[in-house]
């Protein structure tokens, strides 16, 4: 991990430079934010296929007979429901029910689990997991050895299938398998963060360049393009996926964040269960809501939200939504007693603009099947 004065570069840094990337520091990495127009990159994913290099994210393997039980104690969702070759999404909470990170956990085998962690939380997650798991299983942070690529969009699967083992096409949503893509052994998963169908590939660093080149070549007829973090944000926000560090964090709990569906109350004990049960009993103090701006303007995280002149919270995320005709959308928490409001006002540099309050994704893409 970089100290505050160092910054890491992605393995494929030169490829991003060659593609005209504009970089910005994120989680200790020099990350490609965009290569040209963010709006065009966004549309490329929604209409065709886009390639994301998200190798800054962390890949933590948990192995051993005790892995399932150990991991299941750390997360709210129930890992015992998974069979080999499946994955799920889950928050990982502290004892107060605050979210330490949100994860995708892949069951590769009964004794081998891959936990994909957010880049900015990698160090904390590994320390927490190691401390909590102790000798019960082996926790290995293998992030330095793996690249992570996401190929997303309605054409994404066809493109990757054209250079992959036949078995890939049979993967159901949230399925995962070890197989060959572009001649190299990878861990392929049918997961993503855009609302579109596609794959996330966990690629050993040694073959990352070859896999990148192979997929980009295969995708050329479909207009595949590199997609930066800025479009990744507009895509995930439209699909109403949450961003750790913005919409969720240690000071938020899964219930107020609308993630109660990930909490499996009938599984055994897990860290934070008692705290979450209490919150469920009494009701959370606030609830996450979506906002669609109804007047001309731009929304940004941090802008105060009002319901009938009462300040009820502030925005946690906001962006223009290219797939919604450029409407401006956001997420934010509203005080529980007023969270049923259908209209709110958002203060934009001193002016209050009206917004519709929503509870559903803003856009449904091909990931919904």
């Amino acid at each position: 991990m970089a100290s505050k004065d160092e910054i890491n570069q992605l393995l494929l840094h030169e490829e991003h430079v060659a593609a005209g990337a504009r970089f910005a520091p994120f989680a200790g990495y020099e990350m490609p934010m965009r290569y040209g127009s963010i709006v065009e990159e966004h549309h490329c994913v929604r209409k065709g296929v886009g390639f994301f290099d998200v190798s800054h994210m962390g890949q933590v393997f948990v192995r051993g007979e005790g892995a399932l039980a150990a991991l299941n104690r750390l997360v709210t969702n129930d890992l015992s429901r998974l069979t080999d070759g499946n994955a799920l999404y889950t928050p990982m909470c502290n004892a107060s029910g605050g979210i330490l990170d949100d994860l995708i956990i892949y069951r590769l085998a009964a004794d081998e689990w891959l936990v994909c962690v957010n880049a900015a939380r990698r160090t904390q997650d590994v320390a927490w997991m190691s401390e909590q798991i102790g000798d019960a299983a082996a926790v290995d942070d293998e992030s330095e050895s793996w690249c992570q690529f996401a190929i997303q969009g309605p054409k994404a699967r066809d493109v990757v299938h054209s250079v992959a083992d036949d078995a890939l096409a049979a993967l159901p949503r949230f399925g995962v398998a070890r197989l060959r893509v572009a001649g190299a052994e990878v861990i392929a998963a049918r997961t993503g963060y855009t609302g579109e169908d596609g794959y996330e590939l966990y690629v050993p660093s040694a073959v990352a360049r070859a896999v990148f080149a192979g997929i980009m070549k295969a995708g050329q007829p479909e207009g595949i393009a590199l997609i930066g973090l800025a479009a990744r944000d507009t895509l995930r926000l439209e699909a109403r996926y949450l961003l750790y560090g913005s919409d969720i964090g240690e000071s938020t709990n899964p219930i107020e964040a609308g993630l109660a569906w990930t909490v499996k109350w009938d599984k055994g004990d897990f860290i934070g269960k008692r705290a979450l049960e209490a919150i469920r009993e009494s009701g959370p103090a606030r609830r996450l809501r979506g906002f669609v701006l109804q007047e001309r303007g731009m929304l940004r995280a941090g802008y105060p939200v009002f319901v009938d002149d009462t300040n009820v919270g502030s925005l946690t995320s906001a962006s223009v939504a290219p797939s919604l005709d450029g409407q401006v959308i956001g997420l934010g928490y509203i005080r529980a007693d007023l969270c049923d409001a259908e209209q709110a006002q958002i203060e934009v540099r001193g002016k209050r603009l009206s917004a519709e309050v929503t509870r559903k994704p803003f856009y449904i893409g091909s990931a919904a099947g």
Partner: protein
Amino acid sequence: MSKIPADLKYTKDHEWAKQVEPGLWEVGITDFAQDQLGDITFVELPDAGTSLDAGESFGTVESVKTFSDLYAPVAGEVEAINDDVIEDPAALNEEPYAKWLMRIRVADDSVFDALMDAAAYETHVASVE
């Protein structure tokens, strides 16, 4: 390489100015500015009749990822704002020099002499790139 028309004046905040007639000038943002901003999504401009001091903020240009304040290059009064840009902010990325933002009326055109010419602005861009 960003485009820098030879016949315009420039500020260090990446705005350009062009005389329309004696006492009336157009102000906009440069190619370098639109490129730095990325997809422009919203432009906020003052009402016609607003009096501005030199260096005073007269609005903002917002893009998907960031925003930039606009600064009056000289003191004057806002004569008009460009509704085209309000309606279609993305056009600013396409034609930053055709899409002026505001027209400003000044008592004395020589106040614009203090702005950079194209060559000086080119050097300035090179130093911040």
